[in-house]
């Protein structure tokens, strides 16, 4: 990249099912002020704004129109990104593009989703192309159900492994003051007792719909050096789109579809000389809408060999105290405001690298992290963040 980009401030709201106490604009405003406080910047210091949000889910067209004043963007350049599950990452990517081109010095990425306004499952079902997919898609859950079935069959993983992922996520969420679902699970059996939504996905296997916002402030190297916070560098990123045309969206049962994860990882890892992710990178914040998808992502992101993902889970390698912590924050399973979720992955990784994650800080010293996003139908965004370049 021409000009190097750093994350110089992060802010988020306390994510919840319902935020009746604030309007949409006010909720986003909370995260904006938190990020400005973290960076110790005045809103006047921001050169441009990027908005990240999935519109169908709030039922309002162009929701950013009603929040320009609340965000402090009056009279400033603004851009909107809407890209499914990967929206937030693509927005941060756009910010990096703007800074590395030299066009702007300080860019604020504002991301949110207020799920109490609408119904995300309905929204996702409505994304089915009516002429050939209507009636055959039941929101995201059925797609992940198919993925889980394929994974169980191919790898020998059992429902207990998915339950262990939920326990890990809940432990992290209970230590993260901002997370949404803090259940307090204590055993695999508790998870296995939860009811099925779309078999074999149980209630506890799936992510919630959260109302919340997350804001990240990006700055060029020149400006970052003068700022309050230790910069977290965006070393590299990849965004890969996909349109599966055979049968599965996330877990291709035919074995012939190209995975956007593989494409993104092959390019990014090669560019950065990464051949053994668990040794050369310290932490990951991945986008896992279901417990099964997390296990499968360990393989697709090349953290381990094919069909070995569940073995990492069994030996606790990805716990907060583990050799390769994944989703110390509780991940998407605990908190999922869709438009903001990928930005939360980047923000949480930045906090870990800065050592500012409080009670959910990983035990190992984190110098680098991989933050991912997953969108339908199987788009991938991949960010590599580092303490120093």
């Amino acid at each position, binding site marked *: 990249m021409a000009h190097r980009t750093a994350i110089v401030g992060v802010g988020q709201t306390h994510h919840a099912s319902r935020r009746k106490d604030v309007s949409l604009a006010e909720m986003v405003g909370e995260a904006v002020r938190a990020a400005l406080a973290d960076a110790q910047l005045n809103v006047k210091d921001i050169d441009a704004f990027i908005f990240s949000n999935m519109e169908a889910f709030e*039922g309002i067209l162009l929701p950013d129109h009603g929040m320009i004043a609340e965000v402090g963007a009056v009279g400033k350049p603004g851009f909107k990104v809407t890209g499914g599950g990967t929206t937030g990452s693509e927005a941060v990517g756009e910010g990096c593009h703007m800074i590395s081109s030299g066009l702007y010095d300080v860019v604020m990425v504002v991301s949110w989703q207020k799920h109490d306004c609408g119904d995300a499952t309905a929204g996702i079902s409505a994304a089915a192309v009516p002429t*050939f997919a209507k009636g055959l898609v039941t929101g995201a859950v059925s797609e992940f*159900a198919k993925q889980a079935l394929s994974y169980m069959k191919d790898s020998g993983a059992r429902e207990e492994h998915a339950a262990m992922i939920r326990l890990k996520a809940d432990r992290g969420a209970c230590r993260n003051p*901002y997370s949404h679902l803090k259940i307090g699970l204590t055993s695999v059996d508790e998870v296995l007792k939860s009811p099925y*939504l*779309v078999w074999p996905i149980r209630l506890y296997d799936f992510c919630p719909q959260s109302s919340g916002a997350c804001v990240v402030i990006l700055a060029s190297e020149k400006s970052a050096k003068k700022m309050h916070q230790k910069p977290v560098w965006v070393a590299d990123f990849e965004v890969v789109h996909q349109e599966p045309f055979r049968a599965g969206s996330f877990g291709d049962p035919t074995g012939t579809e190209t995975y956007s994860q593989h494409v993104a990882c092959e390019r990014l890892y090669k560019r950065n000389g990464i051949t053994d992710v668990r040794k050369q990178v310290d932490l990951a914040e991945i986008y896992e809408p279901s417990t099964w998808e997390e296990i499968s992502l360990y393989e697709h992101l090349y953290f381990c060999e094919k069909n070995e993902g569940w073995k990492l889970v069994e030996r606790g390698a990805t716990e907060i105290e583990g050799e390769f912590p994944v989703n110390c924050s509780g991940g998407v399973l605990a908190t999922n405001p869709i438009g903001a979720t990928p930005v939360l992955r980047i923000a949480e990784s930045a906090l870990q690298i800065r050592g500012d994650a409080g009670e959910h800080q990983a035990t190992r010293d984190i110098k680098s992290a991989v933050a991912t996003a997953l969108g339908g139908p199987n788009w991938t965004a991949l960010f590599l963040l580092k303490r120093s370049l």
Partner: protein
Amino acid sequence: MAQASPQKQPEQPEYISIKYDLPRPYHWSTGKYLGKLYAEAKENKKLVADRCPKCKELHLHAPTPVCPKCKVDMGWDWAEMPLTGTVFQYTYQVYPLFDPHLGKVFADPHPPAIILLDNGVYMRHRLEETDTKKLKEGMRVQAVWEEDYERRGQGFQDILYFRKIEE
């Protein structure tokens, strides 16, 4: 001074929520390629897919002008699909979810499935059998068409579901 996001929502006697339902009508065109699938289904109760001139792969979901893999024009080479196959994978809905096309909460009793048609092409559709205990991966199934000509013209939905073939 920045206003921190509240850890617990503040108590206020009354919060106003405005509920509204805005049905959004849409009119989607199939275009020429998907239109051929619709035409064959309606007129002849046949299921067709187009074939890429370069990689020779068949596109059922959905017939398309450009091959996703090779990125070349597909031309106009059509093949008829067999209407029998094996159930590769199925799932079933337990918890009813809101269906935006119906405007209400609904659980489709017919399990969605991936069917491996006898020519090696994978197809997404529903199974007739609603008793989940009777479902099995690998069972042989065949397409059941909507017999009323007037009610056909819905593309893939002209096949109602796949029925188990009794041995």
